[in-house]
């Protein structure tokens, strides 16, 4: 492969590129899904390809292809330089990169059991059994069942005209299940385990999927789905809100992860995903949250879906403060975006979801650092409130200020104890006001969770990212947006 990367970079230089890099990537993915007792997906994906990025005439060019042959690499290298030159013609000043130490290195996310060595039959057997037990729990009410497994591996080679040559292997695995309870005269109610979006995922091997203990959680999950069909609706009011990990992770993702992506802040996503209220003039000045809020972008945390050795620009993984004691202090960045606002180095945030795609600033592991509380202490300390769990719906504006989320389930908290189940929970708030009201975050249930579904960019890319968090408490939050509660619910 080194011959190919060297030839590609030579061609780029010869064609007039002042900088070039190439990624040659293979991706293997195993996706299994059982739905209502039937196989829904049993699919193996194998992708191989390359992408070449150039700076020519001061502009950035990129081209990629599925065909990893010397002839195609030469053609694509020339095209990437030509595209760079065309881009450069519209620029007011040439693109600049902050420095990076070019290294030769290799990196591998650790695992105990290779997900691709475990027989597919074994995975199917577990999923079928989960599906069967969900249905059997109450066949008259549990009408929809689904269980999922996914294993994923990327082998990447990165080489640049600066002399970098890095090989990496990234592996993740995980899964989960969901069921929907339907009772005459009530709305269908879904419960998932361990989280929505087909479960949870970790940069580990098959041992992570095993550790989820899906079978042991069937009964509790089905029971909650059925209980939801008889539960009262979420009241419409302002209240104290507790959010646990499988909702808090998306709250962090949408209201801190995306708005601190520096490419987005600088306008790259202005016509698509949007911009950000966290502009460079507010860096070090904006009180983003309360003193209890500490957020980091950490691509070094073991087992996170945003964990790697080097990003797709060859920058070594690192941990960067985004919010420290509530103050907005940092960005997720690339070599280009860091240079634009005068940062000394990139946060190592560049990744592409496919060899033929341009790397973008993508979330790594965006973690809310653990607080001093235990989950039960937060509940015991809450006189009246609502505890919400497991994301169901999400939406946030283009500057990442106004958000609205819905969760699968919630519970009333009365005098420090968990009380009745609540259905159709929703909440809405404005980002800094919301994080400004956080006064407690737990450490005992803090987990590094992962979602492989983060969309960004034109052409669109879907990236896998991590979020570490526990259970947090927020005050004076508007809940019950859909106003579904009625007098018969006894809560209005």
């Amino acid at each position, binding site marked *: 492969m080194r011959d190919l990367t060297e030839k590609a970079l030579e061609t780029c230089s010869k064609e007039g590129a002042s900088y070039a890099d190439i990624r040659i990537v293979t991706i293997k993915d195993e996706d299994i899904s059982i739905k209502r007792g039937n196989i829904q997906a049993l699919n193996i*994906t194998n992708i191989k390809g390359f992408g070449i990025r150039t700076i020519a005439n001061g*502009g950035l060019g990129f081209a990629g292809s599925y065909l990893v042959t010397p002839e195609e690499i030469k053609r694509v290298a020339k095209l990437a330089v030509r595209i760079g030159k065309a*881009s450069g013609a*519209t620029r007011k000043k040439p693109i600049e990169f902050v420095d990076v130490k070019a290294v030769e290195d290799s990196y591998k996310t650790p695992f105990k059991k290779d997900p691709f060595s475990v027989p597919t039959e074994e995975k199917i057997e577990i999923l079928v059994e989960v599906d069967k037990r969900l249905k059997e729990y109450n066949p008259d009410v549990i009408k929809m069942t689904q269980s999922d497994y996914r294993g994923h591996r990327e082998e990447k080679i990165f080489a640049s005209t600066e002399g970098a040559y890095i090989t990496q292997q990234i592996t993740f695995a995980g899964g989960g299940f969901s069921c929907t309870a339907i009772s005459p005269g009530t709305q269908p109610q879904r419960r998932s385990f361990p989280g929505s979006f087909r479960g949870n995922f970790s940069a580990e091997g098959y041992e992570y999927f095993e550790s989820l203990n899906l079978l042991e959680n069937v009964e509790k999950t089905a029971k909650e789905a059925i209980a939801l069909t008889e539960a009262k609706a979420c009241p419409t009011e302002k209240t104290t809100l507790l959010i646990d990990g499988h909702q808090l992770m998306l709250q962090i993702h949408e209201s801190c992860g995306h708005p601190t992506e520096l490419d987005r802040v600088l*306008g790259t996503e202005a016509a*698509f995903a949007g911009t950000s209220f966290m502009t460079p003039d507010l860096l070090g000045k904006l009180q983003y949250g309360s003193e209890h809020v500490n957020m980091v972008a950490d691509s070094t945390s073991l087992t996170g879906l945003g964990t790697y050795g080097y990003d797709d620009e060859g920058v070594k993984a690192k941990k960067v403060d985004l919010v420290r004691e509530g103050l907005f202090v940092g960005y997720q960045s690339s070599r280009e975006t860091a240079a634009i606002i005068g940062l000394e180095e990139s946060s190592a945030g560049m990744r592409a979801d496919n060899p033929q795609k341009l790397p973008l600033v993508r979330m790594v592991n965006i973690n809310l650092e653990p607080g001093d509380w235990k989950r039960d202490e937060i509940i015991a300390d809450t006189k009246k409130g609502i505890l919400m769990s497991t994301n169901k719906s999400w939406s946030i504006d283009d500057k990442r200020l*106004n958000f609205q989320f819905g969760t699968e389930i919630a519970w009333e908290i009365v005098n420090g104890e968990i009380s009745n189940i609540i259905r159709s929970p929703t909440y809405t708030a404005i980002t800094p006001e919301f994080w400004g009201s956080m006064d407690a975050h737990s450490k005992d249930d803090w987990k590094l969770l992962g979602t492989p579904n983060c969309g960004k960019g034109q052409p669109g890319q879907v990236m896998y990212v991590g979020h570490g968090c526990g259970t947090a408490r927020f005050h004076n939050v508007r809940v019950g947006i*859909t106003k579904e509660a009625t007098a018969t619910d006894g809560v209005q």
Partner: protein
Amino acid sequence: MEFNKELLLEKGQFVLKEAEKLGATQAEVTISMRNSALTRLANSIIDQNVAERHATVSTIIYIGKKKGSTSVEVLDKDSLKQAIEQAAKIAKISPENKDFKSLPGPQKYSTEISIEDFVSKNTLNATPEQRAEFATLAIDSAHAIDKRINAVAGAISHIAVENLIMNSLGVEAYEKGTGSNVNLTVLAEDGKEQTAGWSADNRKDFTELHIQEVAEKAARKAADGFGMKYLEPGEYEVILEPAAVGGLMFFMSYFGFSAMMYQDYISFLRDKIGDKLFSEKLNLWDDSFDKRLVYQALFDDEGYPKSKLEMITKGVVKNLAYDTLTADKDGVKSTGHNAKFRGRSMPFPGNLLISDGNSNLDEMIAETKNGILVTHFHYQNAVNPTKGIFTGLTRDGAWYVKNGEIQYPLRTLRYTDSVLKFLANIDLIGKYMDLNDTQAKVPPMKLPAFTISGSQKE
């Protein structure tokens, strides 16, 4: 990109023969060749500029009711052979899909339209330099509208695709096509506030994109956006421009009319087929043969012929969209709406049209007592799909309208409401507009009641 049907046929036949050798009782292969390029603008320069060349081969093997599938980005015979062997191997260990009856048999495809009409040579031959010229035209045109314009963002793109679907029962479906798009968000700033305007256009022929018109329209919206005010949450009349209607229809179609969503108890139309749920003025259908649409197709992702699907006629819910699996489950025929994505599939009607009316935006504004005018929506999502409750935010231009006149621009607003409520009554439907700013062919419309649930002030 040069199309090569013979190459695709050769590869397709190879896959089916190999599958048969490995014991497949039925097999399907989809070969997709795709060349695309996209020039992305930000801050009035070309910020990203990419070209991609993809070749995807997806193989499905059935052994009885057991299914295995692989998807690979390779075309050489050895790699394909490996992929077929892998699909056969997993089919052997797969549990049975009791709902599966058969892949589709040989099909006849419409001769009303020719696939040659799906292709524009100008798009096939588009270059990075042409995209850069269009980018410069967009930037210059937008800045010429108003001195306060400070950034042009967006994308100018084109794509050429070639697809072959073959199965062991005799399906042989081939089509090719091109498409192109420009979408621009223009930002303006006066030192006190930043405004935004948006517009877009879609064409088969890259050279026919209305670059200047799109840039000027987006820039005018941005220039007209100064002096934004907050609006209290509540119920308002709403005037939806076509892109706003198109966005709503996408979610309505996905969550409501897909037979899979219906069978999974997610659809808000459950047990309501045949009911009059919407305004008599509303006619919604899917028709991939309609030449008014930019993108057309002869068949769906399993090679089943597309057919016109009446979805809402005079407010009455008529039909769901089916593929073979969901159709077999309900004992009906597929409507030709299978859509495959990342190894999974579902029926989805994506070639949408709404019949137009005689009104226009000016008349709608004149008829509005207390309402809002919306360019398009951002980040829409289902809050409660079983009740048809969706949410989303206004973006790139919304205005408050009172007593027949536009009063002032509005800061971002969030709606949270049920389609079953806000489409139950429609005041006015307009004529189709010139730009294809959404892939659906939809007119603007005015609704009497739409719930605004929040703003950036909350």
